[in-house]
C-alpha cells in the first residue's frame, strides 16, 4: 500500500468544479507521477471548503497551506515548488484584505477563525466518494451507539441537546421525532428535505456533496428512533453533483451492510430511496413536498394533520432538512451537554449561513448561534466590498426581512431574528451596501414569490401579485402615499390568511423594508428619487453645458440616438428618448454627463 506523507485536498463543490477544479486534480496527479511522487502524495477531491469567493481551493497537508484561486496551469508550480522543493507558492496564498499580507494557513484566516464546524465538519476534509474516510472519522458510530441506548433514550438525548430544525421553522427536532415515534402504524417514513430553494442558499447542497454519509447515518438513526424502515430523500434535480455523490454513498453503505437488513447486528432494517423534485420553491414546505413525492401537484395541505400523524401515503413521517440531519450524529458522539454548551439559551449549536452580496469573503460559513452580524460581516466576511458603507443584511431569503445598522450587534438566533422582523430561514445572508435600493430589493423578492406561489390559496396567489404591482409602481415613480398604506395593509392580510409558510412569510421583505427604510419609500413617492440610483425610471441624464467639449463620443455610444449636438459644441440628451443605460457616462472623458 502506498504510504502518503502529504495530502493535497482539492475542493470539489459545485462552485469550484465550475472553475475547473476537476482539471486541477487531474493535472496535480499527472505532475506528481512525472516526479515519481504518486505514492507519497495523495490527491483527494473533497466537499466545499466554504470559501467560495476565492475558489478553487487547494489545501496542502500536513503543513495546512491554503492556496486560493488556483488554476489548472498552477498545478505544475505547486508540485514543483511546494511538494518537491518545500517552498510555498506565495502568489497563490490568501491575501488579508486589511493589511495586504499573505496568510499561509487557514487557522490564521479571519474567514475561519470565528467558525465552529459541526454540520460541515467533514466538508473539505474527507473524500465524499469514499466511505472509508467517513468511517475513519468515527462515521456510523453514532448509529451503533443509538442501537445500544435504545430509541427512547436516543430521542431523550436529542431533546436535551436543544437541536432545532435548520430548514427555517426552528421546531425542536427531538420533539418532532417523539411525535412520529408515538403514532402507531404498520409503516412509517423518514424523509430528508433536500429541496433547497431559497435564492442564494446552498448549505444543504454542500453537505450532500461533501459529506453524504452523515445524512444517511442520521436518517437511519431517525428510522430506528421512530420505527420506520424506509427513508426518502427529496432532492432537487438541479443538484446533479449532490445526487451523484449521494447515490455513490448509498451504494457503499449498502455494500458495507450499513443500510439494508439487520444493520450492525441490531435486527433493524432500513434503506433509503431518492425522489427528485422539479425545482418548485413551495415543495420545500413539508406538506407540499409530501404531495410532490406522492406524484401529485406540489401544493401544501392544511396542518393539522401534521406529517408526524399522516404524512407520506398517509403514514406517520418525520421530515427534517439536510443540515438538521447533519448535526444529529455529532450530538450522539459528543453528547447533548457538549452540543448545548454552544449557542444561546433557546438556540443551541451552530448555523450554516450562505454569505453573499457585497462582502469581500463570499462563501459558506458555520458559526455558533449568538454570534453578532458585525462579527459575521466584518471579521468573517472581511468587510464591505470596495470600502463602501454597510446598509442592510437580508436574511431568510424571500421569507425573511432586512436587518440594519441598529441590528449589527444583535446576537443571532431564531428568536432574536424573529423579534427584529426577519427570520433564520434556511440561512441565506445577503449583505447590501449603500448602492442598493431597498424598494427594489423588496420588489426582487416579491417577484420570486409571485413566480413560485403554487396558486392554491388566493391571498398568496392574488395578494402577492398586487403587492408586486404596487412596488413596481413606486419604483416607476408613479406611487402615492396611499400606496404605502396599501402595501402595509395588504401585507398583513396575506400574512394572516395564507395557507402555508410561503404565503405567510412572503410579505416579510416588504414589511421590514418599510419599517426600516420608510424614508426611502417616501423619497421614491414624493421626490421621485432613488438615492441608490437603481430605479432607472427615476433617473435623468443631463449634459453639463460648460464641461462638454463636443467630442461626440457619447453620440456614437448611445444605443437609442438620444444625444444630439454640433461637433465642438455642447450636446443635449433628449430625456423622452433616453433609456438611462449609462453608456454615455462611461464613455465621457470630461465627466460632463450627470445623473440627477
Amino acid at each position, binding site marked *: 500500500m502506498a*504510504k502518503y506523507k502529504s495530502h493535497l485536498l482539492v475542493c470539489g463543490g459545485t462552485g469550484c468544479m465550475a472553475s475547473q477544479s476537476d482539471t486541477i486534480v487531474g493535472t496535480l496527479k499527472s505532475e506528481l507521477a512525472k516526479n515519481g511522487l504518486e505514492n507519497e502524495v495523495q490527491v483527494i477531491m473533497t466537499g466545499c471548503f466554504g470559501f467560495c469567493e476565492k475558489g478553487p481551493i487547494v489545501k496542502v497537508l500536513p503543513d495546512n497551506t491554503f492556496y486560493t484561486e488556483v488554476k489548472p496551469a498552477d498545478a505544475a508550480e505547486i508540485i514543483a515548488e511546494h511538494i518537491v522543493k*518545500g517552498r510555498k507558492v506565495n502568489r497563490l496564498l490568501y491575501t488579508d484584505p486589511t493589511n495586504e499580507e499573505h496568510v499561509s494557513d487557514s487557522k490564521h484566516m479571519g474567514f475561519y477563525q470565528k467558525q465552529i464546524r459541526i454540520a460541515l465538519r467533514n466538508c473539505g476534509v474527507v473524500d465524499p466518494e469514499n466511505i472509508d474516510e467517513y468511517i475513519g472519522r468515527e462515521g456510523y*458510530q453514532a448509529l451503533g451507539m443509538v442501537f445500544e441506548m435504545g430509541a427512547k433514550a436516543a430521542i431523550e438525548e436529542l431533546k436535551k441537546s436543544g437541536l432545532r430544525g435548520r430548514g427555517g421553522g426552528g421546531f425542536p427536532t427531538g420533539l418532532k421525532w417523539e411525535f412520529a415515534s408515538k403514532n402507531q402504524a404498520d409503516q412509517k417514513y423518514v424523509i430528508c428535505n433536500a429541496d433547497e430553494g431559497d435564492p442564494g442558499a446552498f448549505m444543504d447542497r454542500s453537505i450532500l456533496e461533501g459529506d453524504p454519509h452523515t445524512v444517511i447515518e442520521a436518517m437511519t438513526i431517525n428510522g430506528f428512533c421512530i420505527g420506520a424502515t424506509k427513508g426518502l430523500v427529496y432532492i432537487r434535480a438541479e443538484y446533479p453533483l449532490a445526487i451523484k455523490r449521494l447515490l455513490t454513498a448509498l451504494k457503499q453503505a449498502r*455494500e458495507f451492510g450499513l443500510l439494508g437488513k439487520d444493520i*450492525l447486528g441490531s435486527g433493524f432494517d432500513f434503506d433509503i430511496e431518492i425522489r427528485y423534485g422539479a425545482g418548485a420553491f413551495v415543495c420545500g414546505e413539508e406538506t407540499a413536498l409530501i404531495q410532490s413525492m406522492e406524484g401529485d401537484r406540489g401544493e401544501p395541505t392544511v396542518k393539522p394533520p401534521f406529517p408526524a400523524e399522516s404524512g407520506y401515503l398517509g403514514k406517520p413521517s418525520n421530515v427534517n432538512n439536510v443540515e438538521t440531519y447533519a448535526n444529529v450524529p455529532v450530538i450522539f458522539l459528543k453528547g447533548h451537554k457538549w452540543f448545548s454548551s454552544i449557542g444561546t439559551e433557546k438556540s443551541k449549536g451552530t448555523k450554516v449561513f450562505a454569505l453573499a452580496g457585497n462582502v469581500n469573503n463570499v462563501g459558506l460559513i458555520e458559526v455558533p448561534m449568538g454570534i453578532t452580524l458585525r462579527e459575521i460581516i466584518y471579521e468573517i466576511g472581511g468587510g464591505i466590498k470596495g470600502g463602501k458603507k454597510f446598509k442592510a443584511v437580508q436574511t431568510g431569503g424571500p421569507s425573511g426581512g432586512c436587518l440594519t445598522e441598529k441590528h449589527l450587534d444583535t446576537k443571532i438566533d431564531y428568536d432574536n431574528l424573529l423579534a427584529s422582523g426577519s427570520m433564520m430561514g434556511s440561512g441565506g445572508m445577503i449583505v447590501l451596501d449603500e448602492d442598493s435600493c431597498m424598494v427594489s430589493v423588496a420588489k426582487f423578492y416579491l417577484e420570486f414569490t409571485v413566480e413560485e406561489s403554487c396558486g392554491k390559496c388566493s391571498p398568496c396567489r392574488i395578494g402577492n401579485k398586487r403587492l408586486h404591482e404596487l412596488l413596481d409602481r413606486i419604483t416607476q415613480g408613479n406611487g402615492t402615499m396611499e400606496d404605502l398604506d396599501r402595501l402595509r395593509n395588504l401585507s398583513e392580510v396575506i400574512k394572516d390568511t395564507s395557507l402555508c409558510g410561503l404565503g405567510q412569510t412572503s410579505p416579510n421583505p416588504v414589511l421590514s423594508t418599510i419599517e426600516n427604510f420608510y424614508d426611502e419609500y417616501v423619497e421614491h413617492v414624493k421626490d421621485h428619487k432613488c438615492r441608490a440610483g437603481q430605479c432607472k425610471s427615476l433617473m435623468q441624464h443631463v449634459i453639463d453645458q460648460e464641461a462638454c467639449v463636443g467630442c461626440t463620443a457619447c453620440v456614437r455610444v448611445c444605443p437609442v440616438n438620444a444625444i444630439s449636438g454640433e461637433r465642438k459644441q455642447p450636446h443635449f440628451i433628449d430625456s423622452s428618448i433616453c433609456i438611462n443605460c449609462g453608456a454615455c457616462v462611461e464613455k465621457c472623458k470630461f465627466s460632463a454627463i450627470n445623473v440627477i
Partner: protein
Amino acid sequence: MTKVKSLADLKKMKDQLQSKVSLREKGDNPDSLVQIKVAMATCGIASGAKTVMEFFIDELEKRSIDAVVTQTGCMGYCYAEPTIEVKLPNQEPVVFGYVNNQKADEIIEKYIKNGELVDGIIPVNYNTIDNK
C-alpha cells in the same frame, strides 16, 4: 466487500482507517503536536533527508507519538545536512544536524520522548520574520 456486523467491528475498522485521515485532523491543530521539519532542498535530499523523513514518519507512528512531519526548504546549514527542526509543544524549536536514521532514533527516544537534548544541535544563528 465484507459487511460490518457490529459496533465493535465498526470501531475496529475505524482504528484501521483512521491513519488515512489522521494527517488531516493533525493539520488542523499543529500547535499541540510535535512538529518535525526536514530540510529537503537539493543538498538535504542528496545527503539522505528523504530516508530520514520516511524513518520519522514510520517510527513515530510505530511508537504512537502524535507528530506532524513536514518537509521544508533549505535551512542554510548545508554543511550539516540532513538537518531537521524539532518543535515540541509550547517550546522553542531546536535544530539538529547530520541526522541519519541512527541519530533520528536517538532524537525520538531522548529528545521527543523525554526532552533531553542530544548532541548535534545547531545554534540558530538568525532571526526569522516571525520571531523578530
